[in-house]
């Protein structure tokens, strides 16, 4: 990480990058470096790190989306395209799925995976920043962002951008690491995140630092109720959340009024 990036002389211009404070303008670039580094082995690492449970978390998120044939679904930070592939089937040939990610390396992997899975006719791949979505107002039925919001520099701005592009009645689903509900589980989870996770990252992806950042960024991410408040402040209605695996992960759902 360059000195320029961690220069936080002006406190208002700083933001979290894991446990480090960095310039707001530099965060996107730093996050990009992390994901450039892990893109090729992202799915493998997710499977190893979560024991495959991330697939179950995503499965429930898809159920909550209630996506139907003919709808338009935007998967932000969709990375390697596993959610987009499922949505492609659900919305059918009359629907549309937009796989969006700020990171070109992740999108490239995602696009290849989607082609391999035969999900091509109704899927568009777009490199986009969640804070300034390049889509028309009221044009999307459902937005999902799975394990992506914590890497966004200005979460409130991103939530407002998502609200803008959603159709009235449309829904946003945020699947993200959160705060374990049991203190014992929290302790075990801490040990796992800061001891096992970087070691696993070093072993499989030859990149301990990136996986240390992932663990740190999870701890800096707002907990369940704080995120619920952020969504309501952004203008979402009927916001609820479901804790999964003891609160290690939560899925928040809110609707555009």
């Amino acid at each position, binding site marked *: 990480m360059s000195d320029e990036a961690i220069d936080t002389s002006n406190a208002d211009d700083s933001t979290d990058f894991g446990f480090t404070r960095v310039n707001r303008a530099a965060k996107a670039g730093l996050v990009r470096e992390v994901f450039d580094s892990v893109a090729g082995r992202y799915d493998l690492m997710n499977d190893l790190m979560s024991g495959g*449970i991330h*697939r179950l*978390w995503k499965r*429930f998120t898809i*159920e909550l989306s*209630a996506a139907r044939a003919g709808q338009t679904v935007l998967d932000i930070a969709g990375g390697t395209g596993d959610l987009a592939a499922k949505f492609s089937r659900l919305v059918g040939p009359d629907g549309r799925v937009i796989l969006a990610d700020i990171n070109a390396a992740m999108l490239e992997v995602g696009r290849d995976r989607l082609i391999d899975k035969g999900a091509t006719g109704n899927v568009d791949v777009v490199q986009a920043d969640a804070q300034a979505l390049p889509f028309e107002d009221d044009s999307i039925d459902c937005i999902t962002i799975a394990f992506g919001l914590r890497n966004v520099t200005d979460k409130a701005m991103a939530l407002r951008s998502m609200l803008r592009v959603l159709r009235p009645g449309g829904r946003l689903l945020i699947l993200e690491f959160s705060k374990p509900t049991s203190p014992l589980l929290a302790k075990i989870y801490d040990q796992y995140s800061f001891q096992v996770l970087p070691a696993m990252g070093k072993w499989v992806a030859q990149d301990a630092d990136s996986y240390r950042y992932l663990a740190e960024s999870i701890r800096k991410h707002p907990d369940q109720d704080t995120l619920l408040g952020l969504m309501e402040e952004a203008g979402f209605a009927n916001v609820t959340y479901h804790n*999964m*695996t003891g609160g290690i*992960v939560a899925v928040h759902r809110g609707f555009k009024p």
Partner: protein
Amino acid sequence: MTQHDPALLSAALSGAEVALNQAITLAPTSHQALAELSGTLLGVEITSLEMTLYLALNPGPEVALFSHCEETPDAFVRGSIEDFTALIASDDPAATLINSGIELEGRSASLIRLQQVIARMDIDWEAPLVERLGDVMGHQLAESLRGLFRWGEGARKSLKRQLSEYLLEEGRLTPPKLELEHFFEGVQTLSMQVERAQVKVEKLIAKAAARESRQ
């Protein structure tokens, strides 16, 4: 929010979905009947487990299971796990549905049809065994498994018959089915006669009251 951890429920449903779809793949004779049911959505609430799940029959044919659904199911059934086990194993699903503790909302026809398809499903276990183990080994193993299943089925039927005979004949602990049905018919007839008599009495009372008011 939800009572069960959605991830745990998703794991169970995901496993069951894979098993069901594998069974459907191995039972080609049921494909036509399942295709006719395509588009059907069933809701199931298992009261003893405090769990609600949904089953969708999709083209393919394939089955999708999920714990959250915002569409109105064609049929929604509520009951204990014992009730559903009895329904799946039943030779007469309509009677089981009426006589068990299962509550039904919506159309029963699709539920009964699905139960019949499941009950008649003839799964060809030999195909995947032959594919993995070769013609000779696969066929031998399939034959052994078939023999084991036949023996198991025979043993189950024999045990059921013997238990039934003991309860009816030896122990005289339960009345025979026909006698019980005759008794129920008698009770039903008596109930209807009482209802008719009650209506007649009410009519007579009303008539008498009207006569009194005229005088």
